[in-house]
């Protein structure tokens, strides 16, 4: 049994609701049978009630956060101690909870931290890769009237099964003709009738007219299909590109394809079809039966002997493929953003670096803007960063920027590894 003295020591906690369940039960049990303690408890309750009642009128009613935040001063510029910096950095990596909404812009030019490197697959480009050989692919299927013209400007020639494909080759199919090419990568391209495609290199082709089905192997580097109306950019997927009068229709059967025109870009997933037109934004996207749309290509199957020849001659020559998309998430928390700064690690072989496309999306992965950074920027030996200016008005009311950086694939083979992306703004 608890003594009266022990019970008395619990009274304030009991009244304040700050005792454990067992303490509460012990007290109530004791008080029910002890008149002295019962009276003490009553008096204690009365004085406590008096205190609450007396102070009640002075309680803070308004929320101070609005006036405080409205006139927030500038933070001292005192350098942080090394320990604090370590702690700040550590916490930035180990934090788990989402952000609150933000309304104000920080003191000018305060960099926004990189919250996560969601996807960054870096492999170094081959140091001793094969010089562009004559053969980057092979003709795997050929039916009907198919002709080839090469960069050298020779007259169009007939096309033989299992004949090699060189960079710069242009293939054209006639009525009721069909063709299939395999490119190092591997990438399979099935070409419909009345189609003209140009092979720029093993990662870039143009569909100048007609229709092509592509299966881009999962581990290849970025693959780009140019058309007059816009491009389709992929890592690994199955899709179809159809060029018609004034528009290009891209249908995705598997994986994800980024389509882009002069003014718009967007990612398409399996079962989606986008129509690309010059100057049209947003892109028209439909849900379609992709398998039915791409059924035409099923009739085109590679020749068995050509497959063996391809595996022997072209495929082994292709160095281990590399993905090069880099993805960053920058929290801006609604502050106006005027530019982005990309920093990178010095590359070993700056003279051989290529340019990069930058795609910026909001947190819903809707398009904000895109830009291209030329290869020359990365080729300046001591350069470590580049600014990409937001076109037009600053970005506002966007909490998170998703930034995708992909090599343009047109120049240089040495990859630039981006280490940090920051968003910059000014006072609104």
């Amino acid at each position, binding site marked *: 049994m608890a003594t009266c003295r022990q019970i*008395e020591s619990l*009274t*304030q*906690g009991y*009244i304040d609701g*700050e005792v454990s369940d067992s303490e509460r039960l012990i007290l109530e049990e004791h008080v029910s049978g002890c008149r002295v303690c019962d009276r003490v408890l009553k*008096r*204690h*309750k*009365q*004085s*406590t*009630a*008096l*205190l*609450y*009642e*007396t*102070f*009640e*009128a*002075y*309680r*803070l009613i*308004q*929320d*101070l*956060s609005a*006036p*405080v*935040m409205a*006139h*927030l*001063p*500038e*933070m*001292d*510029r*005192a*350098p942080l101690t090394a*320990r*604090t910096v370590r*702690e*700040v950095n550590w*916490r*930035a990596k180990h*934090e*788990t*909870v989402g*952000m*609150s909404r*933000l309304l*104000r812009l*920080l*003191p000018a030019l*305060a*960099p*926004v*931290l990189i919250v996560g490197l969601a996807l960054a697959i870096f492999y170094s480009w081959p140091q001793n890769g094969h010089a562009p050989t004559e053969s980057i692919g092979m003709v795997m299927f050929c039916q009907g009237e198919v002709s080839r013209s090469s960069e050298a400007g020779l007259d169009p020639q007939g096309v033989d099964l299992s004949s090699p494909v060189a960079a710069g080759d242009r293939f054209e199919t006639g009525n009721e003709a069909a063709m299939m090419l395999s490119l190092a990568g591997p990438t399979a391209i099935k070409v419909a009738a009345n189609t003209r495609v140009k092979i720029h290199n093993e990662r870039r082709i143009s569909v100048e007219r007609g229709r092509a089905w592509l299966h881009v192997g999962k581990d290849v580097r970025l693959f780009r299909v140019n058309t007059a109306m816009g491009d389709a950019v992929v890592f690994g997927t199955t899709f179809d590109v159809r060029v018609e009068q004034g528009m290009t229709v891209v249908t995705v059967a598997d994986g994800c394809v980024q389509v882009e025109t002069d003014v718009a870009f967007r990612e398409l997933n399996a079962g989606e079809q986008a129509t690309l037109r010059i100057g049209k934004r947003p892109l028209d996207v439909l849900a379609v039966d992709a398998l039915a749309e791409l059924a035409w290509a099923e009739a085109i199957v590679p020749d068995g002997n050509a497959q063996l020849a391809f595996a022997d001659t072209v495929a082994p020559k292709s160095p281990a493929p590399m993905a090069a998309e880099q993805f960053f998430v920058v929290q801006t928390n*609604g502050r106006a953003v005027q530019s982005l700064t990309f920093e990178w690690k010095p590359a070993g072989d700056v003279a051989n670096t290529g340019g990069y496309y930058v795609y910026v999306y909001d947190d819903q992965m809707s398009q904000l803007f895109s830009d291209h950074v030329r290869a020359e920027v990365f080729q300046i030996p001591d350069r470590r960063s580049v600014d990409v200016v937001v076109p037009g008005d600053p970005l506002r009311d966007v909490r998170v920027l998703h930034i995708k950086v992909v090599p343009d694939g047109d120049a240089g083979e040495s990859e630039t590894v981006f280490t940090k992306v920051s968003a910059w703004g000014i006072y609104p």
Partner: protein
Amino acid sequence: MQLKDGDVVCRCLQGDAEAFRTLVQRYQAAVYATAFYYVGRYGASEDVAQEAFWAAYRSLPHLREPDRFGAWLREITCRTAANWLRRQGRRLASETPLPHRRTVSIEDARQGPRGRAQGRERFERVQQAIDSLPERYRLPVVLRYLQELSYEEISRFTGESRDEIRGILHRAGRQLRDLLADIDQSEGEIQWPRADR
């Protein structure tokens, strides 16, 4: 899940000014009550509380242990209040410190002048009783009875352990009970609502 103070502080240090709003919301009751304890009689509690938050934000890079933000903020609040009193010293000397600034509520109006006078008198008695407590007890008492902070919240702000706070409030409660015993109170069970926070 609630972010730890230290994490929020680090966000602020990384340039996320808006994160400070979380800290203001978390500590405004405590900071206001502390300000009230020092300058309440001059009606300056809210102003001093705001000033304290601004001072804290400015000095955030000097905070050594981000997880002890609460206790650090209490020191800043006390300093801000002391500075305010020093600044206002001459002017205040020529002013009557009472009555406290407060909104006249509908209930006050119903009470009439006599009721209000009684309320003022009672406030004075309570204030005197608190002032007679050992200094270490006073702030926890104000935090508890003015803003109804939990022992845990009080402990985070004063830097003392929850058990220490429980002991302090118990001893203070006993002394106040004796000091205020003669104030007329209606008999029976008394209900009081917890403030909405």
